[in-house]
């Protein structure tokens, strides 16, 4: 009898704790996900704040809506899509990658590529000019023979002076 009572009591305790762990983190998870999603959605009244940061009444209603969708089991993307369908791309804090935002996303890369091409060409022409300079720095065959002759004359003259 005592054992029965104890086992009943323990099962009661376990079921209560299970019930608590089943609901408590769930509410936290909803709150956390609501906050995460809200941070990626623009407050359409204040424009440069997310609905998470904004105190505007509409932003607060939108947060409530996000929470409702999360509880209803929508994925983060589904919640965003829901509001995007009604407010357009503008409601997303981070612009989506699509035709009219191509330049926005690829612009910086284009700049870097253009600079790299310009730089590579510049380096190549510089090399070419340097090579040409190098080539022109030496003496031609004709100049070389004249120089040897002149030097030979000079030594002859010097010898003559000695004697």
């Amino acid at each position, binding site marked *: 009898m005592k054992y029965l009572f104890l086992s009943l009591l323990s099962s009661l305790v376990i079921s209560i704790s299970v019930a608590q762990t089943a609901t408590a983190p769930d509410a936290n998870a909803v709150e956390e996900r609501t906050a995460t999603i809200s941070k990626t959605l623009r407050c359409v009244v204040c424009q440069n704040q997310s609905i998470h940061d904004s105190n505007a009444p*509409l932003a607060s209603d939108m947060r409530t809506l996000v929470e409702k969708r999360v509880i209803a089991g929508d994925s983060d993307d589904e919640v965003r899509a829901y509001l995007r369908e*009604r407010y357009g791309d503008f409601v997303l804090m981070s612009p989506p990658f699509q035709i009219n935002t191509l330049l926005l996303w690829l612009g910086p890369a284009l700049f870097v590529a253009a600079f790299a091409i310009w730089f590579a060409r510049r380096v190549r022409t510089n090399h070419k000019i340097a090579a040409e300079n190098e080539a022109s720095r030496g003496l031609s065959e004709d100049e070389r023979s004249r120089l040897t002759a002149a030097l030979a004359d000079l030594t002859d003259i010097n010898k003559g002076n000695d004697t």
Partner: protein
Amino acid sequence: MATPEKKRDWSALAPIMAFAGLAFLLAVGLTRDPRLLPSEMIDREMPSFDLPALRAGDARVSNADLEGQISLVNVFGSWCAACIVEHSKLVELSFRNDIQMVGLNWRDNNSAALRWLAQYGDPYDLIAIDTNSDLAIELGVTGAPETFLIGPNGQIRYKQIGPLTDQAWSENIEPIVNAIKAEAN
């Protein structure tokens, strides 16, 4: 005396050209008002709604009330200063019997809204209250006033952001009203 053909080097102009291009793009960007959000809702179905009425004794307002009529759904609030600007136009339109005037009292206090309507006149055939932005968010409303033109089949035909001025009415909305009537015939 023929001067030797000299190849012109335009590369020195590149930075100036780049600057001019950028300046042009930025100038175009400045002329666009980011507050005028694109209306995603045009030509879509009116979202389904079923909201309590503002006036005591009125029945709830829902999609069924819009069926078979051309309706102007006007989002307003007693807190909304710009709503006063368009109010006389709404009162004027309320005398037409081919358009049903539907008010969506948004995020307001009932008694304040009723007092406001008593003061400025009540142009609405039906008034629904949307305390928690349920329908407002479904409609992609960003601020009051906003006015939606709904066709008899429940399709959203036009969205006016900001006050419904004489000009907005005659240039943008009235032609659509006439087009809807022409479609019906």
